[in-house]
C-alpha cells in the first residue's frame, strides 16, 4: 500500500503540525515494518505540478467523454429557466433541453442542516454527498468550506492519468472561497489530485508573481507587493503557498496577459468572464473535465429583479458559446457531455416585494433541475421523477468510467442510453 502524508487542518484553519509529524513518523515506521508491502518511500514531498503521486501505480489514460459541468448559479428558480412561458434562458430551455435528458424535478434534500446556498450546492455537486458545512475560520457568513469526501476531479485523477490542467474549475470574482473547493481533506485523495482553478484571483496572483520576478518594483514598494503576494498565496492555506501552477497554466496566463493586458479592465466581466476563460481553456489547455461556477443571478439579493433575469440571460448566452465551441472542435465534438445544474433554487415568497430575492432554505430554494446531453445520454427526454441533486455526481462518474465511492445517490438511469 502506498503511503502518503496529509496536512491536517483544525476547524480554525491552523495546522496541527506536531500531529502530522507524529503521523508521518508512524506511517514511516509502519511502512518499514511491513517491508514487502511498501513499494515506495513513505515520505513524499508535495507533488510537483502536473504530476500525480510519485509512488502511484501507473494509471490508465483517460479515453472517456469530456465533461463540462455548468453550475447554473447562483441560485435560479425553475420558473425563469425551464418554464417555457417564463424562461429568460430561451436557448437552454427551447434548444438544449431537446438534445438530452431534462430532470424537471431535481431537488436538494430537505433534511435538517442541509443548506440551500452556493458553496454548499457546489460541493454537493462535486462530492455527491450532502453535508453540513461550516466556515473553517468561523467567520460570520463565511463560505470557506472543506469537503471531507473526494470531489469528482480527485476521483478522476486518482483513476486516470490526468494532469492538473486537464481538470478545471472556472470561478468568478465574487465568491473567492469557491476557488478552493478543488480538493478535499480525504486521506486517500486530497491535494495531489486537485483540479486547477481558473479565475481572476489566480491571474492576479500569477501577474503579481511575474511582475516581481521582472523587477517592476523596488524598495518599499517591492516589499509591499511581496507582502500582497504572500497574502494572496496564503488564502490557499492547505497547500501552504506551494501550489505553483504548471507550465501549461503559466503559459495560459501569459497568453491571457498578452491579449488583455494587466489592468483587468479589458477582459470580459462577470459571468461573461467565466465563459471566456472556459473557451480559452478549451482551446489551450484541452481539459477533460471543467466545472463553471456561474453566479450573476445572485445579485438579486440586493433587490433588483433585472439583475436576476439578466444574469440568467448572460448564462444562456454563455451556454450557446460553449456548445458552439465544443461542436466546432473535432476533439470535443461528439465526445463531450454537458451537465447543467443549479447550485440551488430561490425563494418564491409572496410576502416579499421581490419574491425570489433570497434563498432561505424554502421549498422553492430546494427545487432545481438538471440537464444532461451528449454521447451516451438519452435525447429528447423529460423525467418527472423526483431526483436528488447529488445524483449528478454519481451519474457523471458513471459516464466517465469510475466509481464515486463516497457519493450517496444512485445513477440517473433514465439519462443513459
Amino acid at each position, binding site marked *: 500500500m502506498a503511503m502518503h502524508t496529509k496536512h491536517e487542518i483544525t476547524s480554525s484553519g491552523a495546522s496541527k503540525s506536531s500531529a502530522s509529524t507524529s503521523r508521518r513518523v508512524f506511517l514511516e515506521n509502519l511502512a518499514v515494518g511491513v517491508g514487502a508491502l511498501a513499494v515506495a518511500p513513505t515520505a513524499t514531498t508535495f507533488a510537483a505540478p502536473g504530476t500525480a503521486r510519485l509512488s502511484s501505480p501507473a494509471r490508465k489514460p483517460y479515453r472517456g467523454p469530456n465533461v463540462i459541468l455548468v453550475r447554473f448559479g447562483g441560485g435560479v428558480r425553475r420558473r425563469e429557466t425551464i418554464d417555457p412561458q417564463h424562461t429568460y434562458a430561451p436557448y437552454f430551455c427551447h434548444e438544449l433541453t*431537446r438534445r438530452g435528458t431534462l430532470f*424537471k*424535478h431535481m431537488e436538494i434534500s430537505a433534511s435538517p442542516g442541509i443548506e440551500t446556498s452556493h458553496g454548499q450546492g457546489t460541493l454537493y455537486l462535486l462530492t455527491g454527498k450532502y453535508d453540513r458545512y461550516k466556515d473553517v475560520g468561523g467567520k460570520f457568513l463565511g463560505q470557506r468550506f472543506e469537503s471531507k469526501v473526494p470531489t469528482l476531479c480527485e476521483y478522476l485523477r486518482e483513476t486516470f492519468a490526468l494532469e492538473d490542467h486537464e481538470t478545471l474549475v472556472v470561478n468568478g*470574482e465574487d465568491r473567492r472561497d469557491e476557488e478552493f473547493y478543488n480538493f478535499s481533506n480525504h486521506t486517500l485523495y486530497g491535494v495531489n489530485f486537485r483540479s486547477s482553478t481558473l479565475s481572476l484571483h489566480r491571474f492576479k496572483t500569477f501577474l503579481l508573481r511575474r511582475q516581481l520576478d521582472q523587477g517592476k518594483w523596488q524598495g518599499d514598494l517591492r516589499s509591499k507587493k511581496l507582502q500582497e503576494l504572500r497574502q494572496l498565496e496564503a488564502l490557499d492555506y492547505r497547500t501552504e503557498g506551494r501550489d505553483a501552477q504548471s507550465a501549461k497554466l503559466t503559459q495560459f496566463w501569459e497568453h491571457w496577459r498578452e491579449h488583455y493586458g494587466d489592468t*483587468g*479592465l479589458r477582459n470580459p*466581466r*462577470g459571468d461573461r468572464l467565466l465563459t471566456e476563460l472556459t473557451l480559452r481553456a478549451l482551446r489551450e489547455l484541452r481539459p477533460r473535465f471543467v466545472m463553471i461556477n456561474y453566479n*450573476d443571478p445572485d*445579485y438579486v*439579493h*440586493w*433587490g*433588483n429583479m433585472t*439583475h436576476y433575469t*439578466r*444574469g440568467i440571460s448572460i448564462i444562456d448566452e454563455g451556454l450557446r458559446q460553449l456548445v458552439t465551441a465544443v461542436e466546432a472542435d473535432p476533439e470535443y465534438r461528439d465526445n463531450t457531455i454537458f451537465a447543467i445544474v443549479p447550485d440551488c433554487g430561490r*425563494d*418564491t*415568497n*409572496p*410576502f*416579499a*416585494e*421581490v*419574491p425570489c*430575492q*433570497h434563498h*432561505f*432554505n*424554502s*421549498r422553492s430554494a430546494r*427545487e432545481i433541475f438538471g440537464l444532461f446531453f451528449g454521447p451516451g445520454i438519452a435525447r*429528447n*427526454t*423529460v*423525467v*418527472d*421523477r*423526483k431526483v436528488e441533486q447529488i445524483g449528478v455526481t454519481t451519474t457523471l462518474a458513471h459516464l466517465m468510467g469510475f466509481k464515486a465511492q463516497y457519493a450517496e445517490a444512485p445513477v440517473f438511469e*433514465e439519462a443513459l442510453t
Partner: protein
Amino acid sequence: MIVERSRDSGAVALSGGQSRPAAIATDGSVPSQPSAQNFLWRRMLIGAWKFVVGVVCTQSFLLSIVLAGWMQRWMQRVVVQQWWRRSRPTAGTSFRDFCLADAQTYPLGHWPNWVRGDHYDRGQPSSRCRCWFGSLAANFRVGLSVLLNTWVLTLPGCALWLFAWYDGWNNSFNKGYEQYWVGPITGWLGVLLFIGAMYYVPMAQARQAATGDWRSFYDFRLIARLVRREWFGSLVLASLYVIGSLPLAVLKTLPVALGVGLSWDRFTEKQLHSMTSAYFLACGGVFLGVLALTRYFAARLYARAIYDGVQAGVVSEDDLSAFEWETLHRLGLSRVYPPKLRPALVRSAAWLGTRAGQATAATLLSVLWFSFVAQVFISEFFNRNAAKGWLNQPLVQLPWFNFTPGHLQVNSSHRRTRSTPACPTADDNVRRRHRW
C-alpha cells in the same frame, strides 16, 4: 384646529382664516361639564376610538397625512400641558379648566378629533361643514405642511440612499470597476445629510406643532439654540427613535421569514393580500405606540427648552410665536430670572462641562442616527420595498406603515370570478417519460 393669537389686535386667527374678538363662545356661555362618574368611561372609549382610527390611518398614504396632522395637534396640547404643570397650578384646578378658560387654548381642552370639528368650531355660525369635518380638514392641512417641511430637509438624504443602492449594485453587477466609487460615495453623502437633518428635524416638528405656524419650522437659529441647550434631551430622543425603530424594522422584515416558512401554494392572491393587510394593520398598533412616544417626548423636550430658555433670558419674546407668548404669559412663566452669581471657577467648570457635554452629545447623536440609518439599510436588504422603503421613514416622515408587496395589491384588485392557486403545483407522483 391649531390656534394662534395676534398680540397686536388681540384677535384670534382661526383655521378658516377668520378673526374675531377673543371670547370663549359666541354667546358668552361656558359649555357644560360631563359628570365625573361618566367622565372616565367616556375618556376610555374615546381613547380607544382614537387609537383604532389612528391605527387605520397608518395603512394608507392619504390617511397617514391625517395622522401626521393629528399628531401635530396633539403635540401642541402636550406642550401647553407641560407648561401648565410647571406653573404649579392651584389645587382643584385642572388643565382642562385652564384650556377652556380662554379662546386660544379652548380646543386643547381635549384630545384632537379625527373628523368632527372641535367644540369651539361647533359654536360658530354658518359652519356646518366645519362642524362635521373641521378636524379632518385641519388634520390634513397640518399634516401636509409638516410632511412637506420634513421632506425638505430629509428627502435629499433619502433620495441619495435610493440612488446609491440602485446604482451601486447596478454597477457591481455590471462590474463597472471604473465607477465603483459612485454608489458608496453617494450613499455616504446621503447618510451624512440625513444625520445632519435629524439633529434638527424632531425639535423643528415640535416647534411647528407648538406654534401652529409652518414657517416656524425654519427658525433655524432658535431651534439650533434649543437643541444645543437640551443636548441631553436630544440624545434621549434620538435613542428613543433608534430603540423604537428596531422592533419596527423587525416587523417590516418579518413577512420575508413568514413567507419562507409558510406553505402558501394553496392560498389565492386575494387571500395572501388579506393576510398581509391584517398583519400590517396589527403592526400599525405597535408603530402608532412608538410614534406617539417619540412625538410625546419631542413635545416635552420642546416645552422644557422654551420654558428654560425664556426664564434664562436666552429665548426672547420675539423668538416666541404669539400663541406661545400669550400662553406663557397667562401661566406666569414669561418672567426672566437673572442668572445666579456664581464663583468664577464654578462658572468656568459649568461652561466647560456644557461645551464638553455638547461635543460628546454631538458625537453620540451622530452614532445614534447612524444606527437608525443602518436599520433602514439592513431591513431593505432583507426585504426590498421599492422606492418607498428608502424615501419614507415612517417614524420621521409620513407615518405610513404598510409594506404590502405591490404585486399583491395589484393582483388582488383584479377581482377573480373564482379562486385560483397563487402558483401551480408540480405533479410529483407521476413517473413517466415524455417524448417531445
